[in-house]
């Protein structure tokens, strides 16, 4: 294992906008609760193969209203490295209407990440805003949208200008619903307008071009009081 491989793991582990599936695509009914486990992250070349960065997180979702779900998550992988990494957000159903034998909807999700380490307690705040369109037929839901992640700091180390503040990430996904569980897979094209070569981590280059990288995620959600 060389330096590049090692750093690929640790860098992938902190690619914040890529740390979990979309927590809530379609708001859950009022009063309902669920717990979600998410696994996955940016795809990296490692050990001679391609794997998703093994980011894991645990989240709790609560249906505040029928069209508003609050959620909070804790990134477990970050925690293992001494970084308390929380995400808090709300999914709001903007619109929903029947379409053919199912229904379509549109949701928005403002959220933020709060991170701090247990060594020097350096804390960072990152806002995020997601827009998702979805279509449901019975137990199946497909969705697509844009995950927008924002870096508010103007300067990085050595007072160098932070080159980018808005990271937009096209996303597609699929959910399968059972009575007690929801299974979710998601692909995210991470930062397609940012060059992913000339970086320490060996990110997978979509379509062979260094335009961002691809994230792959799996979500497993347990419905608590449905």
């Amino acid at each position: 294992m060389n330096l590049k491989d090692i750093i690929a793991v640790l860098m992938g582990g902190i690619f914040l906008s890529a740390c979990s599936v979309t927590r809530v695509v379609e708001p859950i009914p009022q009063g309902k609760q669920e717990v979600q486990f998410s696994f996955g992250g940016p795809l990296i070349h490692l050990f001679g193969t391609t794997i998703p960065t093994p980011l894991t997180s645990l989240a709790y979702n609560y249906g505040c209203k029928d069209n508003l779900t609050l959620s909070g998550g804790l990134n477990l992988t970050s925690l293992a490295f001494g970084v308390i990494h929380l995400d808090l957000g709300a999914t709001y159903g903007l619109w929903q209407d029947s379409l053919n034998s199912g229904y379509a909807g549109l949701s928005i999700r403002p959220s933020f990440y709060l991170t701090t380490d247990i060594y020097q307690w350096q804390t960072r705040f990152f806002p995020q805003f997601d827009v998702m369109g979805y279509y449901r037929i019975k137990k199946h839901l497909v969705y697509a949208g844009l995950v927008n992640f924002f870096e508010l700091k103007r300067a990085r180390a050595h007072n160098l200008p932070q080159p980018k503040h808005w990271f937009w990430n096209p996303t597609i996904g699929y959910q399968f619903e059972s009575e007690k569980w929801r299974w979710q897979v998601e692909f995210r094209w991470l930062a397609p307008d940012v060059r992913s070569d000339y970086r320490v981590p060996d990110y997978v280059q979509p379509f062979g071009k260094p335009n961002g990288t691809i994230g792959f995620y799996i979500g497993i959600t347990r419905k608590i009081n449905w």
Partner: protein
Amino acid sequence: MRKIIFLGALIGLIAFSCARLDSFLFNPYKTDEYKLDAYDGKLQFRLGPEFDIPQDKIHLFSISSQGYKIWGIYIGDTTTISSDTVILYCHGNTGHIDYYWQRAKLLAHVGGKLRYGVLIFDYRGYGKSEGEPSEEAIYEDTKAMMQWLKDKGLTGDRLVIYGYSMGTAPATYWSSHDGPLTPRWLILEAPFASAELMVQDGAYFVLPKQYVTDLEINNAEWIKNAKAPLLLFHGTEDKLLALDPHGKTVFDNHPGPKQAVFVEGATHSDVPVILGIEAYISEIYNFIKSH
């Protein structure tokens, strides 16, 4: 009960959340015996017989660094170190002396065969050297080698310190901090600016380095206090440590005098080859002669 187990697991995770990747960042290769030209491992380049070093000019030795036996090879005549100019070569993270032997031989041909003495050594945990690698170890082991040179009569005004990749950290450190000798010349090849910028460049975001590493490497800040003139090599196609921001930040922060050779098409490990062996040697020789 399940809630208690879950909370216990979570608290346990927090309590033991001290995983650091620092120790894994070092990539030492051990060996029982240095093979030098007979080394059959993968190399970036092999020099022809015209670059061979006479056996009587190759001196394998060991010294103690904080109680650990570390090994080095001096190319040249150890009895004339008190009057020679010496290039101290701080190698990178991969491999050991064998891996960098061809590079050491190149340096032994700067300005002509054996014009300058060359000292190459293995940090703790690399090659035959005892112990485990760490950031402190690479500084201390470099310092120990400088002390060995000083004990042989070398003075700082005849010392060139050359750092490649990870080796740019001890080279820059000892050019900007008080040590056994103050190098008169500083040569860096494919340097990184700092652990912090490495994290931020890889993550795209302004993340504190403490999130993943305890490394304190900060060439970009240390070099502001460097007393030696700088010659910096960096490949434009370096995808491990990109010229911009790493090499350029280090170069910009050096107070001068300084010169940069940005090698078009070179990656992290092939600057001498892509630049051309003769051109590479000439750049170093001209730099030494002109400062």
